[in-house]
């Protein structure tokens, strides 16, 4: 019997030659597959993935870009609106301020004119009063001189007399005013 002649040996002792052949065989497989063929297909699979899902990704990216631009545009528009509103508001404020200033200026001028008028009137009145007083005094003296026949030329006395007379006049005028 052949198998008896060959003899039983421990199957768990690996043969050296087979070990070397096995390693070499695997290195050949791993070398060709690992260094060339599998990277090849990995690249192709990635390209395919890119071609299929890349299109979707690119579309999504474009969509996102459009959205971003829209947002930007909206923001700019809002800003422009805000700016316009601000400028309008500013102009309105400035206008109101100018009007107020003009009004104030007018008021001031009016008051100045009125004051000047009052002062003029007062000065005129004083002048007139003084003139009248002199005139009235002279007329009264003339009249009294004519009536009494005596010259009242003593200036001092004349003056006092006139003043007393006038005060009496003014007093009666005031009493009349008060009574009314």
């Amino acid at each position: 019997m052949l198998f008896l002649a060959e003899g039983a040996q421990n199957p768990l002792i690996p043969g050296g030659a087979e070990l070397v052949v096995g390693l070499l065989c695997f290195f050949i497989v791993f070398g060709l597959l690992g260094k060339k063929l599998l990277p090849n297909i990995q690249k192709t699979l990635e390209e395919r993935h890119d071609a299929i899902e890349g299109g979707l990704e690119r579309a999504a990216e474009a969509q996102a870009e459009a959205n971003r631009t829209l947002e930007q545009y909206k923001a700019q528009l809002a800003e422009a609106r805000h700016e316009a509103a601000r400028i309008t508001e500013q102009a309105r404020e400035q206008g109101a301020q100018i009007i107020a200033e003009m009004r104030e200026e007018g008021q001031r001028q009016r008051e100045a004119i009125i004051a000047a008028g009052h002062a003029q009137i007062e000065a005129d009145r004083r002048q007139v009063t003084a003139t009248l007083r002199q005139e009235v005094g002279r007329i009264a003296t003339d009249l009294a001189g004519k009536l009494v026949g005596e010259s009242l030329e003593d200036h001092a006395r004349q003056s006092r007399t006139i003043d007393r007379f006038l005060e009496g006049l003014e007093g009666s005028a005031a009493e009349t005013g008060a009574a009314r």
Partner: protein
Amino acid sequence: MSAHTLLAESGCHINHDCAFPAPGLNSFDFKPIFSIGSFDFTKPMLLAIICVVLVVGFFWAAFNKPKLVPGKLQLVGEIGYNFVARSIAREVIGKKGDKYVPFLTSIFFFVWIMNVMSIIPFAQFPANSKFAFPVALAALVFITYMYLTFKTHGFRGGVKNLVWIEGLPKFLVPLIVLLEFIQNVITRPFTLAVRLWANMFAGHLLIVLFSVASWYLLTPSFLSAVAGGSFVLAAGMTAFELLIQFLQAYIFTLLASIYISGALEEGH
């Protein structure tokens, strides 16, 4: 030459007054095809080389000039590649596992095709049932495991990653360190090799047994029913082996990626 060819040559049959040639370790020993000095070139070596040619040839045809819209062959290759890249590497290691996909893919297909040789007519022998082949592959996985462990964590961190478990009661530490060391450094590579070897060894033995029996018992008598039963079992075992061959290649690759994942992870 497997046992049944030997059997046919020896013409051993129940009617020839010949004892049943039960297959055994002899089924795994081959006369050298040729010898160079002390180097004997045997059938398992030839099969391994044929597997190299088949695996590389297939992937060369499928992936040498890959197209964006794949042809049939490229599509089949892609399914195989994606199976390892997604169901094993991505699933077990995660994104970091992408770097190891070529290694894992090479392992998976080399192991699988070598296993499939078990049921291919005229080959009819899984090279992985010779212990040296699983040992060579397991050694490469183990070296990768150790290299990545120490490269990722440095010497101290690497040792810690291999033997240390956080938060143990003090009295358990020596025991666990010893157990972890045995498990990670001794058992892992050993079982990785033995699992593949033993499955292929036993599968081949069963197929040979039932094949031999169905020939041995084939006589114009009631024994032909037993021979028929044996033949059905041999056919059944062949179909079953097809599953086991794939499963073992898958498990081998899965475990390799689990080890790589363990080496890359922080702590454990």
